[in-house]
């Protein structure tokens, strides 16, 4: 074949691609969509549904904890044999705790958060027409959807869902006959998680490749918004840590179903000695937490990125310490791989090794504190606009501080001896990664809702939602610190049997009321979200006066995002309230030649010619003034 022939084929092919997108049916547009914006919305709606399910589960076990001796006939009506006589059964309580944890950690805060905002913002903020592979992107969503169905479907099997805790430690999870939840429910949990990991990995690969290869002209890495840095590093963490969980889960599946003994040894089950010998359950903990710890940063980092963007925009100030923010994200990402041992201080770990893990853990406080101070410094003397998104962003900072402080206690190998497996831990992680991350996610929803649906959410309902949730979350989780300090263990079904725990019953009742009220507060959000989707006020192109590129696209969604050529980027994303400019924001796509009155010497990054032109302009301009 000659080179001319080669050329012709290419042209024909390019042409074919051009026309491929025109025919859109309902199915290709809303169901099997390959458009990143639609996929983002699919992730968001699925994530919200999963969050509601996870929340309802938590209310169910809060009812048990608050009123352990009372019977609620309505529960039996809904849950049947799992709440005979109107009281939740102990087995079901364990299942509730397990699935609540799994859904919240993986389905809401990993995929609901990253899946939504990475998909929406990576192409839009970087100036790409779509993801590196739109097909794999679609596949990622549908694997996630199927895995969600299986996870929730486990509630409908005879023996109930998995009940070994979201960390599914063997041997409990490895022996199908150990408890009812270790039977079919556990198998479904494993299948669901394998699909989930596949979905999450495919997503992460796509995000990384898009960020590295598909940025528009002028968008070098140091001009990327902090959101993109956060999504990028989150995806890197996912690629490096999820495969290790796969390794751990594969061995667990072999132990469950193929008679191997990777994790099993010396077990007597219901009076029978099991043949499995020689295994080590600690091995699973190592494999699990090698993922598990980066996982908590997979959850919090996108939330931190979203908040950076929203706080800078609504403070009308450049983000304080952009480079420091990026380096602290990188620092957190690297450190997250060498701290997993702090989840295992009390497994008989060598105290020297414990000391090493303790030091690496405490070092994480440094980049985290850098981020916190930078948020505060950005807010300081800003021209604050308290939009609902901004409130949720500030809420994240609050939770990140109050929850992060207790991390210093738990990261200490000696203090962890009395504190581990108590409510102190529950309080710590629900504040620092639970509440903080969900606030980051809600912050993102309120901020980018106009971009996603072309309409605005209602502010008043947003404020109501914020205050109920913010106060509710503190009322729920703050008292738990004191329970934990008193030694009240987590995951217990009831605290009625031990004299020293009885005094905490009233506190539990208080927490349950706070949880119920906070949960009701979410109705304001759900109504606002779904109602505004159809009946909200029409959004303008750039409602928040923001600098990033997604606001340069038309309000009506197009396949390919920009109608003509993709705009070029000239400046960093945080030129807010720049002295000398007539507006308090300058989008990234505005060249310096159009903002001569506000340019500063360091804007030109050492470009001598540009500096000369600028100086000349300043001279003539001053002469004109005189």
């Amino acid at each position, binding site marked *: 074949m000659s080179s001319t022939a080669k050329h012709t084929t290419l042209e024909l092919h*390019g042409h074919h691609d051009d026309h491929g997108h025109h025919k859109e049916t309902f199915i290709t547009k809303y169901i099997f969509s390959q458009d990143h914006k639609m996929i983002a919305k699919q992730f968001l709606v699925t994530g919200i549904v999963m969050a509601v399910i996870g929340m309802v589960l938590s209310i169910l076990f809060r009812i048990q904890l608050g009123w352990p001796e009372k019977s609620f006939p309505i529960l039996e009506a809904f849950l049947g044999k799992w709440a005979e006589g109107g009281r939740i059964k102990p087995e079901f309580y364990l299942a509730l705790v397990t699935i609540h944890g799994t859904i919240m950690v993986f389905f809401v805060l990993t995929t609901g958060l990253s899946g939504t905002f990475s998909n929406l913002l990576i192409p839009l903020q970087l100036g790409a027409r779509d993801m590196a*592979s739109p097909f794999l992107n679609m596949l990622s969503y549908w694997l996630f959807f199927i895995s969600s169905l299986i996870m929730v479907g486990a509630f409908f099997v005879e023996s109930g869902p998995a009940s070994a805790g979201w960390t599914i430690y063997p041997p409990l999870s490895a022996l199908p006959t150990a408890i009812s939840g270790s039977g079919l429910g556990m198998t479904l949990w494993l299948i669901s998680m394998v699909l989930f990991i596949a979905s999450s990995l495919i997503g992460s690969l796509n995000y990384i490749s898009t960020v590295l290869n598909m940025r528009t002209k002028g968008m070098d890495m140091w001009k990327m918004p902090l959101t993109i840095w956060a999504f990028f590093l989150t995806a890197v963490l996912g690629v490096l840590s999820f495969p290790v969980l*796969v*390794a751990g889960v594969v061995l667990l599946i072999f132990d469950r179903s193929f*008679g191997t003994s990777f994790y099993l040894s010396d077990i007597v089950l219901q009076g029978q000695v099991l043949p*499995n010998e020689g295994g080590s359950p600690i091995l699973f903990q190592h494999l699990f937490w090698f993922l598990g710890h980066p996982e908590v940063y997979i959850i919090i980092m996108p939330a931190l990125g979203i908040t950076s963007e929203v706080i800078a925009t609504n403070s009308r100030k450049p983000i304080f310490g952009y480079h420091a923010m990026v380096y602290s994200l990188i620092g957190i990402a690297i450190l997250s791989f060498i701290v997993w041992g702090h989840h295992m201080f009390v497994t008989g770990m060598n105290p020297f090794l414990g000391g090493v893990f303790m030091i690496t853990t405490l070092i994480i406080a440094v980049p985290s504190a850098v981020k916190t101070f930078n948020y505060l410094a950005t807010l300081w003397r800003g021209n604050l606009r308290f939009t609902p998104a901004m409130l949720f962003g500030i809420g994240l900072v609050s939770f990140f501080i109050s929850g992060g402080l207790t991390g210093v206690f738990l990261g200490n190998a000696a203090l962890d001896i009395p504190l581990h497996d108590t409510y102190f831990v529950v309080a710590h992680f629900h504040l620092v990664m639970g509440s903080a991350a969900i606030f980051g996610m809600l912050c993102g929803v309120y901020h980018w809702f106009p971009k996603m649906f072309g309409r605005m959410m209602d502010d008043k309902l947003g404020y109501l939602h914020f205050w109920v949730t913010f106060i509710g979350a503190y009322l729920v989780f703050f008292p738990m610190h004191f329970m934990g300090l008193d030694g009240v263990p987590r995951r217990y079904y009831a605290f009625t049997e031990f004299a020293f725990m009885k005094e905490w019953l009233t506190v539990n009742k208080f927490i349950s009321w706070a949880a119920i009220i906070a949960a009701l507060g979410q109705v304001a959000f759900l109504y606002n979200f779904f109602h505004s989707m159809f009946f909200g006020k029409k959004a303008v192109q750039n409602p928040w006066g923001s600098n990033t590129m997604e606001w340069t696209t038309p309000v009506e969604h197009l396949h390919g995002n920009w109608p003509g050529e993709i705009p070029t980027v000239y400046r960093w994303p945080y030129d807010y309230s720049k002295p000398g400019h007539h507006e308090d924001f300058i989008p990234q796509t505005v060249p310096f030649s159009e903002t001569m009155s506000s340019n500063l010497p360091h804007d030109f990054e050492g470009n001598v010619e540009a500096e000369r032109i600028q100086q000349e302009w300043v001279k003539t301009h001053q002469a004109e003034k005189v």
Partner: protein
Amino acid sequence: MAQLNIEETKTNLKAKKFLMWLFLVSSFIYFAGLTSGFIVYTAGSANRGIKTILPEEFMYSTAAIILSSLTMHLAVRAGKGLRFGSQQLFLALTFVLGIVFFVIQWKAWNVLASRGIMFSFNKNASQSFVYVFVWSHLAHILAGLGLIVGAMLGRVRNIAQIRNVFRLEITSIFWHFIDILWIYLYVFLLLNQ
């Protein structure tokens, strides 16, 4: 306009090729997780460890897969030089060598089993680990065979050369990776036998 399309296709193919490299990273991490698990487990007690000499079949299979990497390389060269006949031939050869690898490994398990080294109900899970390594790797071989078939079919359907080369490159990156991966696993096992 046509030129622009080619440019966009090219950057997009570059991004897609990068996806493959990233996948290799995550796949390697999976094996790193398994082998570290092996090390942590085996170090736990003197009763653990492979405790046998690896069957020599593993060595033959290594030869087969190294040879297949060579034919894969030749296929890519042929494809880029527009010699499509030899491209298909070398792809087919690579495919066959992949199958040969599979069969020889099968024999190796039989040898292990005949020595009483079983996957299930083995008190020394270090030995079960050998099977997990090999099977996980074979799953990758299956995926690689799928890619080879995809590349051959693409040529049969006469897809554009830029896409033909893309498929070839994707396939060869993956195939060389599973070759190197096997060598890593084999050396790892040899050092621990």
